[in-house]
């Protein structure tokens, strides 16, 4: 893995750590509300997470000692998993596509959504040719149908529009 000296500001900023700290505090408070046996482990873990998150916040801050925490706690960003730095708009768009895949499966069903999503993604986001996009969609449709519906005789979800019970049936 290549080493980049500078991680994006967004990644090294204090906010991810603050959000996790808030999450830990909420979980800790909820856990404390359970009976003794049920509360023991969650409260202990959430408590530990609060401490860890405080250190994470500290290492990202300009408070004295941040450098020491970084060295001993291993909070540096020298060996990152994701080296590229997409724009916010690009990320939002991409997450939108994923959420869209789910939404489409939920509404029109898995068998119909799979080829449509694949073809649409390849065409609209990937800017691939119409022929290639359609090919991908058809390929996926054939796979889904052949493996699940035909070979394993398994009926894939048909979507909220075509199933009784609505969301309750999930």
């Amino acid at each position: 893995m290549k080493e980049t000296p500078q991680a994006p500001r967004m990644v090294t900023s204090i906010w991810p750590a603050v959000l996790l700290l808030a999450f830990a505090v909420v979980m800790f408070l909820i856990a404390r509300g359970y009976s003794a046996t049920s509360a023991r482990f969650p409260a202990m873990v959430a408590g530990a997470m609060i401490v860890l998150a405080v250190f994470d916040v500290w290492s990202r801050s300009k408070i004295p000692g941040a450098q020491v925490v970084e060295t001993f706690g291993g909070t540096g960003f020298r060996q990152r998993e994701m080296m590229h730095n997409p724009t916010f708009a690009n990320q939002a768009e991409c997450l939108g596509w994923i959420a869209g895949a789910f939404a489409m499966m939920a509404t029109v069903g898995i068998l119909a959504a799979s080829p449509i999503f694949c073809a649409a993604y390849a065409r609209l986001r990937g800017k691939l040719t119409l022929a290639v996009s359609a090919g991908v969609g058809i390929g996926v449709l054939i796979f889904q149908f052949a493996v699940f519906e035909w070979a394993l005789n398994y009926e894939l979800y048909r979507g909220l529009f075509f199933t009784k019970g609505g969301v309750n049936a999930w």
Partner: protein
Amino acid sequence: MGLDALFEAFLAVLNGGSLLFLMAGVLLGLTFGVIPGLGGTTALALLIPVTYTLEPLDAMYLAGGVMGATSFGGSISAILLNTPGTAPNAATTFDGYPLARQGKAGLAIGASATASALGGLIGLFTLLLFIPVAREVVLSFGSSEFFLLTILGLAAIAVSVKGKLLRGLIAACIGLLLAFTGANQFTGETRFTGGMNYLWDGIPLVPALTGLFAISQMIELALKGGSVADEETRSAAENMKITGVGEGILAVFKHWPVLLRGSLIGTVIGAIPGLGGTVASFLSYSSTAQTAKDRDTFGKGNIKGVIAPEAANNAKDGGSLIPTVAFGIPGSAETAVFLGILVLHGIEPGPQILLQNEREIYGLIVALTVSAIGASVLGLIFARFLVLITRIDVNIVVPVVVTLSLTGVYVLEGRMADVAVATIIGIFGYLMIRFDYPRLTLVIAFVLGEIAERSYHQVRLISDGNVLEYMLGRPISVILIVATIVTFFLPAMRKIPWRRLTGSAS
């Protein structure tokens, strides 16, 4: 009796019809293994209704074929796409994917195929050795040992995250908290469910892992664009052709201690119900990376980082049959489904399973053996074509993998809520990648958390509150405590300049 039965089972499998079922299982296993989100458990669960009309033995061949092949299939996507095909292949991505990006995918696949086949064989061989004492082995692993094993696993997390210890631990805490969701086994109280019935049984494992590994990785890949292999390495890869495969096979034999240790770790962890392949391959990887002389090259494309997890991942199938032959209880999700198939055929699995259903058990062992080898041979033959996956435009790879893995999540239990969970956790997983919180530590903690909690409470009740005293009275527990301490302090101890210390002492 054992060897005769085994020999007979081998002869029986050569029967035309049986071999057909076995090969069908291998192909299905490979396919389901390669596709992220579709794993061995899903394949077997889907096959249950199909096997209803089959002879029990043919059902065993089919199931064994699937079980033996999925783990190698999953390593292919781990290496080529940085996306584990099945959760246990997660550790393979650490070094397998960097190798692929360096144009050495052939090397990695060759090593993975060989380590898978040999690891599988070692696991099954160990199982055969253990069959006479399987009962004693299972009886000596009680709640105390389960608890300490989970602690050992958690300790291994702490030392395995190089350079991001704090964030690794935070991720582990999240994993534990997710694991505690649902109805508590001791009080019946539901925790963190927000009033949703769906969460009574806890956050389901397969959807969570699919989201965390497959969906999140696809988002990252989509944002990166292009194709998996770098432009500059692509030409290098073309020059290399796939000649690396042979080299990969040799590498496994060269690093035989890694193979052996991985296989043994896999067998042991496989024998512990509930831990499974993800923990086995992770522990194998981290122990190899920790003790190797060239540990700095791990994570950058060290072939040993492929051999270790893959050997463990396949050996765990043999191990997971130890509790099965001893008491008819499952050692893994796959063996649980396999026992379900037996139940469906009117066979009630129990402690006498090996006496009463020798044919089926040995049939399964043979099927696993043939499958482990068969899948690897097939994989090697097709390796050169498989590598082409890395050259496919991500705009095709991403939507296809996303839809297929979400479909896989659905078909396991037929619940759309699972698909929603996979999507949400997938987006969360991407944020973890983006903000550099390691996902694997979350997963290991998630898998271990529930077992850790319930076995701790069991020990507390069994020992009348004298937990430590009780543990120290059990030899295996003591060994595990020592192993945990060593694991935890090994990295620190390495930093101490021993030579200088001993020098000044003498």
